[in-house]
Each structure stands twice: as structure tokens, then as C-alpha cells.
């Protein structure tokens, strides 16, 4: 039975966090889209006002085949629903391939649920690609509702060039 621990990320973890973000992006065939740097992650996550929070999963040194002991992470932040208040938003969630099926993902979700309840959040939100059926099943098994399907919400974005266009009008 694999041993692992979950802990809050610290400033020294930013290189592992970036590595895992890139691994997840690679998994989605989008690795070149990651333009964030370790410096950004450090300033944005461990400065005066953290813009994100991170949990990292670690295995003992004798259990990792190469490099770092950090083999999974969850990145989240708090959002606000004007009807019910604080929400926990799960932004990224990834466990390295060779460490799957050991209960690490379930445990991360459990800790996040506890965090959400403790900070008096009404729910946890996240998005999933509609073709990612494995993840959809993982979440649905634990009670997640597909709001896009049930409530018809569509996620929109205005990117920087259009923001600049609007702000200079």
C-alpha cells in the first residue's frame, strides 16, 4: 500500500507546481500554452494577496522513481456566488500517471471538501472538458452535478486583446 501525504504548498514547491501544471497541460496536448513562470507562481501564490491555493501530494523518497517526491496537486481559490456566498473553485487537479489508482485523488478531493466546509463555502465548482468521460465519471460518482447540462450555463471569455480594445475606447 503506497504511503503518501497531502500538505499545503509552500514557496519552495513552485517548481514542482509548474512541472505538474505542464504535465497536465501536456496530457491535454496544450503544453505550449503554459506561459506562467515559477516567478509568477511565487508572486501570485505566496505574496500579500494569494490569488490561488495549492495542495500537494508527496511520496517518500524511496518510493519515487526519479526526481521529486511531489507527485500530485490541486490548485484552487475562492469565488463568490451572489445568491449564496463563498464557493471553493477547483482549478487544476492532477496526479502523475504512475501514482494513480492509489486513492490519492480521492484523498485530495476529501481534503478539499473539508476545506470548503470549514471556510463555510456553499459548494465546490470546477469545469471538465465534455469529452473527458473518465473524469466526469470520477466526479459524478461523488455527487457532482453537470450544471452545463442541467442549467444550460455556458462559459465565456473575453481575452486580453479585446479587453485592451474595450478599455481604450
Amino acid at each position, binding site marked *: 500500500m503506497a504511503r503518501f501525504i497531502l500538505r499545503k504548498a509552500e514557496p519552495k514547491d513552485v517548481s514542482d507546481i509548474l512541472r505538474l501544471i505542464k504535465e497536465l497541460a501536456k496530457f491535454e496536448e496544450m503544453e505550449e500554452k503554459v506561459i506562467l513562470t515559477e516567478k509568477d507562481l511565487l508572486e501570485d501564490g505566496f505574496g500579500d494577496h494569494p490569488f490561488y491555493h495549492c495542495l500537494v501530494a508527496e511520496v517518500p523518497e524511496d518510493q519515487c522513481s526519479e526526481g521529486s517526491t511531489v507527485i500530485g496537486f490541486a490548485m484552487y481559490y475562492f*469565488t463568490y456566488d451572489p445568491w449564496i456566498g463563498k464557493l471553493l473553485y477547483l482549478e487544476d487537479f492532477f496526479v502523475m500517471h504512475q501514482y494513480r489508482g492509489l486513492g490519492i485523488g480521492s484523498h485530495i478531493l476529501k481534503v478539499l471538501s473539508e476545506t470548503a466546509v470549514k471556510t463555510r463555502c456553499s*459548494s465546490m465548482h470546477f469545469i471538465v472538458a465534455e469529452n473527458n468521460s473518465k473524469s466526469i465519471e470520477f466526479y459524478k460518482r461523488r455527487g*457532482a452535478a453537470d450544471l*452545463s447540462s442541467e442549467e444550460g450555463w455556458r462559459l465565456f*471569455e473575453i481575452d486580453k486583446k479585446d479587453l485592451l480594445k474595450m*478599455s481604450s475606447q
Partner: protein
Amino acid sequence: MDFKLRKAEPADVSDILRLVKELAKHEEMEDQVLLTEKDLLEDGFGETPFYRCVLAEVQTETSRSKVVGFAMYYFTYDPWVGKQLYLEDFFIMEAYRGLGIGSELLRHLSDLAVTCRCTGMMFVVAENNEPSIRFYKRRGAEDLSKDEGWRVFRFDRDSLLRMATPTEE
């Protein structure tokens, strides 16, 4: 008609709640607003603001100022590109539409996003809300749900509590 935009202050929480409820009523969901003025005060004007608000104000005939519109937003984090501005609620009272207040609010938010070094602004729109979809698309917004197949998911409080409680194995 002259109007001005300004940052919300603690004294504005009753107007914010009024407009949140008006928007909810507009979506036939007024009874779902459980938030109170006290919540809005603690959550928006405490040590860590969980949301921010910009208000639109007009001068009435009797020279009193009236809050007729608002935008509620907060900052989120995209692990590929960093900070984003998330537009949560955006509403102008019916009687004050068509005067350019909405456009000006969006322009103000775009300014803010660019100043805070956000790479984009995100928001959800109900798929049957065609006037809003057109308003946003005219300004360059992309429908990520359509273009990239993202679906919004949620774990509600019951599911969170269930996940957070240790299960028997």
C-alpha cells in the same frame, strides 16, 4: 442622463443586495437569494474580500443619488496564464438600460483587468439569454463552452459533507 461609476463601499451593501435580488427576479430565482447584508458586509469588506463591486449611480430629479446598476467580480487564476478577472454578476435596472451604462461598466472592468495584469475576463451566460450573448459577442467574447467544450460542474454542500466525512471501509 448623467451617471457615474464608483467602487462600492460598506454602506452600499443594501443596494448591492437589492440589485442582486432584482437580477435574480429577472431570472425568476428571487427566492434562491439566501445572502444577507451582513454576509455581503463581511465577505466584501473584511480582511480578505471575496468579491468586489463597481456601482453605477444616477442623480434623480430631487438631486438624490440612486444606485441603478452594478458589476460584481473577483480574481481567479488560470494555471497556464495566471490572473483573470471573473465577472460574476452584471445588471442595470430596466428603466436605465440603453443609456450606455452597461458598456461603460464593461469598459471600466476591462481597464481594471488590464491594470491588474489579468490575461482575460471570464463569465457565464445562460444559453437562452440571447440579448446578453449578443452584447458580449459584439465586444469580442468567445463562447468557450461552444468552442472548447467546457462544462461547468458543481459539488453541492451535501456532496461536500459526504466526501469530507470519513467513510467506513
